[in-house]
């Protein structure tokens, strides 16, 4: 309480303003702002109702006897030497300001949780890319609402993945992920996804760039894809046991457009493989398994098998430009942005060349801590490219470029000049479709003009690089 210290002398002023009116709340605000003025010890501006008169008397003001409920009373207690005029001017200003209208904020704030957003958008699917420790919570909002969800986030503990997918399975909800980079749902690309035409193939993929390679090859062969549903790299593990794969297979089996389902994954845990194969056998739509790993066909071979099964012709996979024979060195240096593309290259090359070669995945957690994925931010790989080019051991450089929604708008803009500066042969796999926003042809031409030999097939690019390394050794 701004009670005057007993020693400080004050003067009081009370005036009636008959006929003046403001509501009690306005006057509370006016009193408060006047009280904040310099030299004002106490202020009460109020209609002179019996209650307010009592309050004023308690505050030690003398109120004229004629004061009635229709009079405004202005009561001020001022520190000695304070000008009354200034204080009264302050009252008038405060009264004017209180009468002013605030336009308010009509704008509706953005939703703060996935659940809140889904309440406002009843048909939406959810796309979750918050940090791993919070991903389950946001994704569970979608499951609660009975909506499909793609979880792009990584670093989600496997027990959380199991809990999420169990809840989803009960509700018939599809959980794509966690750590799902790519999905095409009825033609809509989510995450890193290529633009594809609708068609007879449905894909269930536990691998993002593996799925993208398949999309690119099928697109080139003129075969459309109705949906490509990611399930996350651990879905066929012994812990998760294909919970999302089953739901994804069910969705594609129900889609009358889909004639053939392709399941792309690392080889599942043994008993899970049996379960999924049994499950697939019970579906009305045939399922082609494209399992990745040692002793398995590569992605390009899988695409060819799909084409043959559909009775389509297998085209020659395009190659633009031509790498010259290496001038020295013995090592193959593979620098990748796609994890599955890096492993595929390692498998293909190691079978031919043995150890001693490098296949770096810049999308690996070790390289993404605190920075964007290399499909968005190419800086780190460009640095390593320069280093590999300067290394006398390097015989051939092998790269991938992944196009599609979400990826860098013009990867060749920085990569082509960097390639041009490399004196070793450079082979590039450009994974993309004709309708991708980056313009596949233009990207391929720019890299070929810079001296690279550009393949659509990653396995093809790797085999070519292997051949060049072998040539250097010979």
């Amino acid at each position, binding site marked *: 309480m701004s009670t005057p210290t007993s020693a400080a002398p004050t003067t009081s002023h009370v005036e009636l303003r008959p006929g003046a009116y403001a509501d009690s709340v306005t006057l509370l605000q006016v009193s408060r702002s006047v009280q904040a003025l310099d030299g004002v010890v106490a202020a009460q501006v109020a209609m002179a109702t019996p209650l307010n008169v009592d309050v004023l008397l308690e505050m030690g003001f003398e109120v004229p006897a004629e004061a009635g409920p229709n009079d405004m009373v202005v009561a001020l207690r001022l520190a000695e030497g304070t000008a009354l005029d200034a204080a009264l001017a302050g009252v008038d200003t405060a009264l004017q300001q209180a009468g002013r209208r605030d336009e308010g904020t009509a704008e509706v704030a953005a939703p703060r949780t996935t659940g809140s957003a889904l309440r406002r958008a009843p048909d939406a699917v959810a796309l979750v890319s918050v940090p791993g420790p919070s991903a389950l919570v946001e994704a569970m909002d*979608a499951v609660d609402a009975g909506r499909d969800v793609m979880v792009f986030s990584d670093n989600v503990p496997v027990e959380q993945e199991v809990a999420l997918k169990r809840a989803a399975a009960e509700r018939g909800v599809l959980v794509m992920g966690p750590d799902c980079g790519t999905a095409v749902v009825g033609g809509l690309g989510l995450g890193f996804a290529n633009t594809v035409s609708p068609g007879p193939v449905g894909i269930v993929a536990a691998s993002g760039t593996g799925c993208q390679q398949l999309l690119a090859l099928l697109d080139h062969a003129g075969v459309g894809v109705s949906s490509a549903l990611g399930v996350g790299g651990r879905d066929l593990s012994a812990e998760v046991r294909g919970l999302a794969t089953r739901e994804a297979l069910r969705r594609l089996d129900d889609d009358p457009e889909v004639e053939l389902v392709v399941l792309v994954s690392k080889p599942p845990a043994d008993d899970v493989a049996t379960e999924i194969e049994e499950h697939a056998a019970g579906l009305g739509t045939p399922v082609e398994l494209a399992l990745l790993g040692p002793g398995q066909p590569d992605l390009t071979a899988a695409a060819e098998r799909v084409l043959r099964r559909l009775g389509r012709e297998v085209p020659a996979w395009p190659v633009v430009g031509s790498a010259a024979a290496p001038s020295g060195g013995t090592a193959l240096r593979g620098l990748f942005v796609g994890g599955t593309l890096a492993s595929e290259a390692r498998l293909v090359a190691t079978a031919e060349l043995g150890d001693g070669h490098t296949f770096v995945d810049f999308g690996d957690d070790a390289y993404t801590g605190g920075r964007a994925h290399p499909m968005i931010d190419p800086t780190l790989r460009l640095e390593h490219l320069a280093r590999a080019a300067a290394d006398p051991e390097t015989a051939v450089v092998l790269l991938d470029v992944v196009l599609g929604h979400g990826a860098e708008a013009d990867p060749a803009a920085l990569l082509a000049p960097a390639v041009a500066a490399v004196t070793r042969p450079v082979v590039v796999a450009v994974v993309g479709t004709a309708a991708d926003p980056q313009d596949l042809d233009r990207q391929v031409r720019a890299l070929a003009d810079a001296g690279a030999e550009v393949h659509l097939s990653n396995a093809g690019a790797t085999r070519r690089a292997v051949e060049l390394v072998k040539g250097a050794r010979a």
Partner: protein
Amino acid sequence: MSAPTAVVNVGADLLADAVADQAVPVSRVDWRPPMEGTEADLALVAADPRRRTANERAVEAVLGTTATLVDVAPASELLGLERGQFLHAGPPITWERASGPLRGALMGGAALEGLVEDPEDAAALFESGDSVSLDPCHHHDSVGPMAGVVTPSMWMFVLEDAATGRRTHCTLNEGLGKVLRYGAYGPEVLQRLRWMGDVLGPLLQRAVRTVRDSAGPVDVTGILTQMLQMGDEAHNRNRAGTLMLLRDLGPAMVLSSRGPDATDAADVAEAMRFVGGNDHFFLNLAMPACKLALDAARGIDGSTMVVAMARNGTDFGIQVAGTGDEWFTGPAQVADGLFLGDYGPDDANPDIGDSAITETAGIGGFAMATAPAIVRLVGGSVGDALATTRRMHEIALAENPRWSVPVLEFQGTPTGIDVTKVCRTGILPQINTGMAGAVAGVGQVGAGLVTPPADIFPKALHALARRVPPSPS
């Protein structure tokens, strides 16, 4: 599969842009990291297989409650309160830790019960603690505004859920200014309380019983539905509700001045003037109606719904459906608002009262949008009021289809505060409140807005997480 017609994006904007580039509308969640240290508990509770259905049951139980006014009687009869027993607002507290207004109200209550002649002598009585005991209203199916002190001779409203017969109770509202619930205990305070016990209580009892037995009990939940469309938010503004109650009880009150055991007509007139002239009279019906609804959700394992928010002037406490009777407490905050006379923030006691049960049930501060008349009382604009109600929807489990807000296109009030959503968003419940003077005996010093201390929500979340059954492997 058909393409989704819309996408909700939470996280990287780039992924939202990629969807927007494909000409599909994207709703972007304004996601921010949760309250510090809550990620693991949030994930555990989110993954609790009981949670979704438990919360659905809790919401159903709350919305399925209808509060009717079935009786008015002294606390000694209704709650079995005996001489020396005192109820108070908020979580449990001792005299040693009690704040000024609670002490003042207890002292006045002791004088009212004749335990002491002069309220000032009561301090020694409570310090010794021999012949007196303190207990929260909430532990006795009751709620009390501000200090919330209930003594055996005080008359209380009895609200009953028609379907189950469950009951809650609350004292009669004394009005504003120098009143016991704000910690005042002067002669005029005690005189008013005695009149309420001698005249108002018995008169209301007759009227309430007459109405109950003839037309059926007053539908308090129904009045709340109407008053929310008449500019009341039922915490700091109860004007329409009070007058509707008077409309429902008035004829029976008037008739009680006739026949055997007739009440003096002057007393009837005084009682009607008192009720009609006290804009907060209905608050003491809104509060037990809210408690009656929320109590229906108590004890639902796995539910993350807050079933009580209450303050004793020292601590702010919450109880949660899925954690039994445990209180999660932290220091009560001082409200931000406007002050009466020349009182200022230094004169105000920290937040006090069970009245935050209204916000817990989705009205009061949660229904600010429907009460534009009082937004400036708490220092805001109409736009702020709309934004507040919308913001409270972010932490609520459901909307109340009966309690709707016309200016928000009749959207239901935000119902059922979700502990997990508070921890996820950091949005704290917004409470409209009166402010008591910090010194015992002062009374009301202002009104304003207040929030709970943030850390009680992570505490409650942790307790929920500890109760999650281990997942089958």
